[in-house]
């Protein structure tokens, strides 16, 4: 019992027995997933198996679809029940950032993009221009974008290269100090070189942030994650250390998938 509590303390995300319905269609079946604090976990599985759905339940963005979506089970982020009645979605989403498949910077300047979430969530006190500059520089440096954009922070973010846009989408989460970053196929719109750059960056962020990343790219999952979870048809099939899951999968379905037999 004592062991269980200590273990729970180390979890950034704890999904237990989550089922989810879109109307009458059940997309998730009793899914369990534990993500350790500061680790990178890859979520793999064939198209339509519910990876995005699971990701989107962690920051409750699925709710935007209305009462059409129904979730049962429990999801804890840093030991706090996120499905509880009194949870304010805005606070949750500050703590749990999200990066999408297509980079989606806002049609504002680079600087304003980085400061956007910060300005949404700052409470009361005003920041001086210099303090804001500091925030911008720190966030952009963390995502290795500072040198590229430092001379033109007023440039429209939507005119940057896709790689830079995606880095910016990560950078804009950082000023509000999220503990978890969810990434839904963050490199699938990028070319191989940009993909590699992004993977390196994600690897660098490990430790400071807990990262749950959906990917279709087996090589990426192997290279850039510590643990891997495999889903199939709305169920969690297998979850373990990445090396082990790829080398010695316990489940035949996992083996079939990682060897490319599901396409």
């Amino acid at each position: 019992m004592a062991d269980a509590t200590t273990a729970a303390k180390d979890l950034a995300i704890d999904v237990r027995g989550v089922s989810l319905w879109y109307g009458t269609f059940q997309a998730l079946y009793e899914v369990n997933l534990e993500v350790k604090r500061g680790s990178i976990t890859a979520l793999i599985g064939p198209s339509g198996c519910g990876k995005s759905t699971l990701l989107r339940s962690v920051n409750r963005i699925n709710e935007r679809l209305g009462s059409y979506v129904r979730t049962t089970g429990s999801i804890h982020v840093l030991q706090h029940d996120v499905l509880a009645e009194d949870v304010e979605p805005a606070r949750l989403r500050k703590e749990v950032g999200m990066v999408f498949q297509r980079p989606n910077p806002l049609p504002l300047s680079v600087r304003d993009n980085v400061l956007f979430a910060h300005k949404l969530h700052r409470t009361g006190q005003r920041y001086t221009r210099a303090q804001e500059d500091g925030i911008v520089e720190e966030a952009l440096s963390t995502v290795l974008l500072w040198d590229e954009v430092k001379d033109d922070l007023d440039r429209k973010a939507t005119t940057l290269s896709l790689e830079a846009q995606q880095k910016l989408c990560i950078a804009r989460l950082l000023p509000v100090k999220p503990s978890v970053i969810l990434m839904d196929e963050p490199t699938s719109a990028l070319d191989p070189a940009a993909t590699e750059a992004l993977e390196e960056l994600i690897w660098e962020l490990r430790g400071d942030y807990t990262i749950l990343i959906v990917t279709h790219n087996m090589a990426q999952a192997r290279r850039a994650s510590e643990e891997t979870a495999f889903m199939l048809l709305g169920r969690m099939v297998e979850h373990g250390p990445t090396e082990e899951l790829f080398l010695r999968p316990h489940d035949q379905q996992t083996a079939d998938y990682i060897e490319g037999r599901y396409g």
Partner: protein
Amino acid sequence: MFAATALDHRNRRTQRAFKALFGLMTLMLITPVIIILTVLVVKGGPALSMEFLFSAPSNGMTAGGIFPALVGTVWLVAVALLASVPVGVASAIYLAEYAPDNWFTRLINLAIINLAGVPSIVHALFGVGAFVLFAGFGESILAASLTLAVMTLPVVIVATRESLQAVPKAFREACWNMGATRWQTIWKVVLPNSISGILTGVILEVSRTSGETAPIMFTGAALFLPFLPQGVLDQTMALSLHLFVLSTQVPNVPEHLEYGVALVLIGMVLAMNALSIGFRVYLRGRKKW
């Protein structure tokens, strides 16, 4: 092997015939516009002068200028704008951003579309009942402008809603995922990126109101009132009604006077259209995504 066959020749002839036909249609479409404008400029042009624009009609409206009507039209349009834009834009924001997609919302949307099709004379009678009599504004600028506002409301709503819906969904999702509320999303991202569309739509609609006659005829526009209105509870002359009166109610009006009024009216409408188009081009050039 690749030489044209009889079939190709026939296709080519058909192609040419249709091109000519559609071209002709387009020509027929713009001819009346050109004729109207030419006639107006030729016949009304000589009437234009500072004195015409800035003096009151005199001599039983057979001489003098149009100043009270010009000022009256500006009053009517401005007050109508003040009433319809806030209400229209707010409803459009509600419908586009907040309203759940259910039968009630669909019913409202249907009602708005139908409201846009109601003839202006019906709006006029509604205005008499609602604003002149029931609300007790009497025949006044206020009553006439509110009638115009009700009439333009559906178009303002539709124009605004379309501009809002043209803002890519990805921007909204980005905002929501950073913990922005719906209102923060609207205020910081959706409105700044749709404001050009909203404004141009609104200006376009307003320019149309300035030419309406029926809705103001019974609600606040006077046939002859050679003074400027002092407030919204006064009656006023208006260009559109003035033109109607000159051409049907008053004998022996010199022709150039009638054409002059028409020219000023159409000039006002075209100027506002040009303004809105210029505005749109300017704002388009600034936004990139």
